[in-house]
């Protein structure tokens, strides 16, 4: 069996780490660099930054965050959000990213995947698929944080991006994202069995059992985790973050530790849990 990668996923808006539900209703959690440094030092196998607004005027802060992180974290860093051109990829790599995640630009122009993977190598190009389950049971790909329907069916799209040269696929269940009800093991397994490139599951975990389920039932090669570890970081390291964050952090300062369906766990606890289920990972 593979060593399953635990990827710390950080959604970024301007200078802040944010987290929403179903990719919406973003709350500010803190400085992404602080979280990233903590995860790097505490067992993360990779880091994944997603710029959730990706508007051009905020790009500078993203590049600063990438550079600051790359200087101190010697693990792979993937960056997604608003990457539309070969020059965008070059800029993000130059800032210190190792891989880029592409969604909208790939849907609009599938040949962009081909061009990018040819230019930078397949292993640099991750295609991000944001899936929403339709009433008839089929999954369709969305763009713009799950807001815009593309009419592209997810399974045929996954097969196509593999053929075009993508090195990995990250499948986000928009339905489950931020909810704590668990990953969508069904669509993850369908993609993982269809393609021969690694599949990263993203969206939905709220407790430890969800992590072994997405590997056993969802056949994921890697798992992206956000809320579960962010809330753990906040619960344990809140004092470090005072006065360092802009935006809406009143709920952080209120000392509220009830995170709804999400039970905070550290990366070490997640790894310990999956190891107990005979799943291999880097200790």
């Amino acid at each position, binding site marked *: 069996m*593979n060593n399953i*990668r635990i990827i710390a996923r950080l959604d970024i808006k301007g200078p802040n780490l944010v987290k929403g539900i179903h990719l919406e209703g973003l709350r500010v959690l803190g400085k992404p660099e602080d979280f990233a440094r903590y995860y790097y030092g505490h067992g993360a196998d990779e880091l994944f930054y997603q710029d959730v607004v990706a508007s051009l005027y905020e790009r500078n802060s993203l590049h600063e965050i990438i550079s600051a992180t*790359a200087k101190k974290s*010697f*693990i792979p860093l993937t960056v997604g959000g608003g990457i539309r051109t070969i020059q965008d990829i070059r800029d993000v*790599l130059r*800032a210190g990213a*190792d891989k880029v995640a592409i969604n909208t630009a790939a849907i609009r122009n599938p040949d962009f995947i081909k061009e990018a993977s040819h230019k930078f190598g397949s292993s*640099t190009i991750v295609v991000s698929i944001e899936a929403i389950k339709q009433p008839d049971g089929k999954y369709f790909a969305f763009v713009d944080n799950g807001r815009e329907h593309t009419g592209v069916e997810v399974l045929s799209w996954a097969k196509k991006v593999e053929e075009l040269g993508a090195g990995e696929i990250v499948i986000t269940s928009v339905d489950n994202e931020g909810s704590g009800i668990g990953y969508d093991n069904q669509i993850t397994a369908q993609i993982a069995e269809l393609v021969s490139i*690694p599949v990263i599951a993203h969206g939905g975990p709220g407790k430890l059992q969800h992590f072994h389920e997405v590997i056993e039932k969802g056949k994921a090669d890697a798992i992206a985790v956000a809320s579960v570890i962010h809330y753990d970081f906040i619960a344990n390291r809140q004092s470090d973050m005072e006065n360092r964050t802009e935006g809406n952090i009143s709920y952080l300062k209120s000392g509220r530790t009830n995170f709804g369906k999400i039970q905070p766990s550290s990366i070490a606890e997640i790894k310990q849990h999956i190891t107990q289920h005979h799943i291999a990972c880097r200790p």
Partner: protein
Amino acid sequence: MTKKIAIIDYQLGNLFSVKQACEYLGHSATITTKPEDILASDYAILPGVGAFGDAMENLDKFGLTSAIHEFVKKGKPMMGVCLGLQLLLDSSDEFGSTKGLNILQGTVKKFPLQVIDGHSYKVPQIQWNTIQEPQPDKWGNTPLQCCKSGDFVYFVHSFYAEPTDNQYILSTTRYGNFEYCSSVLKDNVFATQFHPEKSGLYGVNIYKEWLSLFN
């Protein structure tokens, strides 16, 4: 003393993380496409991700192929990373057959697709995997002297190098049922299939060993 390190830029892959690792260790590293910069350096690193054919084409285009040969011939320390290991061999099966730098005899091949007990081993291999010492004490006085068999490092690749002469294989790694060469050492040339600069401080330490051994 600060050492002059040239990171060979042939317009493929992420060179910045390699530079970052060197700087973390207190050395200045220059990313360069110029043969004269490389020849004037104490150390040279050949990184790279991407396609073997494109890499060779770019190395030739920038006049780097002969600079690399000259650098190695002078006995200066050279380190390859990932594609930088594969390029050292004489040819690759990628897209037919492409000639390599021919510093190390052998070929580059693609991973077979393996399904074992219902689990499929994806290609590219992207994961932290372990390195093994091929025989006892092989790692003494090598850049892997800080490592022990079973330690984890980060891999991302679809192709692997198969040197003709086993004595140059410094470590092996298993993917599914498949065992392959994950690093090589031949005189002043050291190369890893994994990314030490992406393997935490553990990996950065491999650069440190390399820089201190060859001085």
